[in-house]
């Protein structure tokens, strides 16, 4: 080992250690912020290690420096600007976009090395390049499609719910396999075929998935971006890349598993089963509502005023209406009146893992008040009022009672156990799954129709009139 090698080795070792500590710290609330900074530091350290190695051996030409600086400045600048500007409500699409760019980066590295070999090409080298292109392309197009869907730029086309899509995706998968082996055999021209069909495969697999399945897809794509980084590590022979990529891949897999558990669906059924609505059309799950009670904001305010314990159940609708701050004002008033307020968070509420937690944190809700499903479910019988805001399938009692329902078996919040349930909703349209919600028909449930933000604003007014929250 020469001196530059030893220096790089020591720095890399330190970087891996700090990255591992960073990831570990990110799983605890107290240490998370420092851990994130530690990981960022470890990443910059790894750059120093790499550059110092090349400075000590082959040297870095002025030309290389120029291209390094151009790329870094542009990339960092856009990244920093986006990160500062983006509103918290669009976090899912932001994460998807960053993710896609990571995939694009490994795709480009592999392409560059494939076209202009920087070291003697071997079979293993070819395999690494092919894997890197394949995973990188899927990560990129998949993430961009996910982002476009979350932004509302792209809806789920009807044909993607038919069996036809399996045929299309199988064609893409087989073609990429052919291109893969062709490339390994030394036919470099098939590299473009591989790029194109794996990009199409990424689109074809992500496009049919939407709505409530989104958290699974986002965390799975996150895992892919780690695998793409590890594959790029094989291409340039870097252990650091492989370790970091593998750790990210594992983190994504754990989250994916947590999300699947939250819906009681297997990963396979999310990826290939299509949306729930496609399965439910023929089942007894759909039907007419017979016993809907609707009530005014005033009644809702009166009931809230008399309550001792209130549980809020937020869902994606809250994020869409951007009503988190208004909600916080309402709960502040209730708390000032000595009413106990907690928030019940379903594992898959929203469009990415932990979506509701981020949203409520932005509105200054202390995280101690956010309760997980298993913790909060025994509390419902002792609760006076439940406010359901933009959530639907996660509070459907069918999941427990009706074995013919497509939702059957999915863990849900037992809101119907509470004395009174108010559901704030725009209209009677079904949830993402298109399944009738039995909760709305129950005698202790009242519907408050209207936009979540507007209803909450009216509620603040009514509570004020009642003198709630004013000493």
């Amino acid at each position: 080992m020469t001196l530059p090698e030893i220096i790089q080795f020591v720095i890399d070792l330190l970087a891996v250690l700090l990255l591992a500590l960073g990831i570990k710290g990110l799983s605890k609330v107290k240490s998370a912020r420092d851990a994130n900074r530690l990981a960022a530091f470890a990443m910059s350290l790894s750059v120093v290690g790499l550059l110092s190695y090349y400075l000590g051996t082959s040297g870095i030409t002025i030309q290389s420096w120029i291209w390094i600086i151009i790329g870094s400045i542009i990339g960092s600048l856009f990244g920093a600007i986006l990160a500062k500007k983006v509103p918290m409500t669009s976090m899912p699409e932001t994460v998807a976009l960053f993710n896609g760019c990571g995939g694009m980066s490994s795709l480009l590295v592999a392409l560059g090395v494939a076209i202009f070999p920087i070291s003697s090409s071997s079979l293993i080298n070819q395999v690494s390049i092919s894997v890197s292109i394949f995973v990188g392309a899927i990560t990129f197009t998949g993430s961009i499609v996910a982002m476009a869907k979350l932004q509302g730029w792209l809806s789920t086309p009807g044909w993607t719910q038919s069996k036809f899509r399996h045929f299309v995706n199988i064609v893409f998968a087989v073609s990429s396999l052919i291109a893969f082996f062709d490339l390994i055999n030394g036919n470099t021209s098939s590299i473009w075929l591989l790029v194109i069909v794996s990009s199409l495969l990424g689109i074809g697999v992500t496009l049919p998935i939407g709505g409530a399945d989104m958290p699974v897809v986002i965390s799975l794509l996150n895992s892919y971006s780690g695998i793409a980084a590890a594959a790029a590590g094989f291409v340039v022979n870097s252990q650091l890349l492989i370790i970091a990529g593998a750790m990210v891949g594992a983190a994504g897999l754990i989250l994916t598993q947590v999300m699947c558990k939250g819906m009681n669906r297997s990963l396979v059924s999310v990826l290939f089963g299509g949306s729930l609505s496609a399965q439910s059309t023929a089942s007894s799950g759909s039907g007419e509502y017979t016993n809907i009670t609707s009530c005014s904001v005033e009644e809702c305010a009166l009931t809230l005023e008399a309550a001792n314990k209130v549980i809020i159940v937020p869902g994606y609708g809250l994020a869409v209406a951007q009503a988190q701050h208004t909600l916080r004002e309402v709960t502040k008033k209730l708390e000032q009146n000595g009413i106990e307020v907690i928030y019940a968070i379903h594992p898959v509420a929203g469009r990415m893992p932990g979506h509701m937690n981020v949203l409520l944190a932005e509105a200054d809700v202390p995280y101690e008040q956010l309760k997980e499903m298993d913790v909060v479910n025994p509390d419902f019988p002792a609760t006076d009022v439940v406010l359901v805001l933009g959530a639907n399938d996660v509070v459907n009692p069918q999941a427990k009672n009706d074995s013919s329902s497509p939702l059957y078996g999915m863990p849900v919040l037992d809101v119907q156990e509470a004395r009174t349930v108010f559901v704030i909703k725009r209209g009677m349209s079904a949830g993402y799954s298109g399944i009738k919600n039995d909760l709305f028909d129950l005698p202790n449930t009242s519907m408050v129709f209207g936009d979540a933000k507007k209803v909450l604003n009216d509620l603040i007014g009514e509570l004020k009139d009642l003198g709630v929250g004013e000493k």
Partner: protein
Amino acid sequence: MTFINLLWVLLLGSLLGLELIGKVPPTLHTPLMSGANAISGITMLAALTCIVKAEGNVPLLIIGSVSLGFALFNVVGGFFVTDRMLAMFSRKPSNKK
């Protein structure tokens, strides 16, 4: 570094990742995801390697530079956005007026 050794590194890295994270509280699902996401931008090292080893090959320099840009967009954006989220979590309600 032989291929087999790299495979060992991959295996141990994956196990390390699974072991490190284990049970994550739901509050941290998003920050963990975006933090991990930022780390996946470690491909910037591969892009740097490309640029340094390009030896005046302009197309490769450009590809490397674009790749570096994408990776740093991922890294810088990812860490900043994670920090922004975590800052909200650590904010104590009592500190406010």
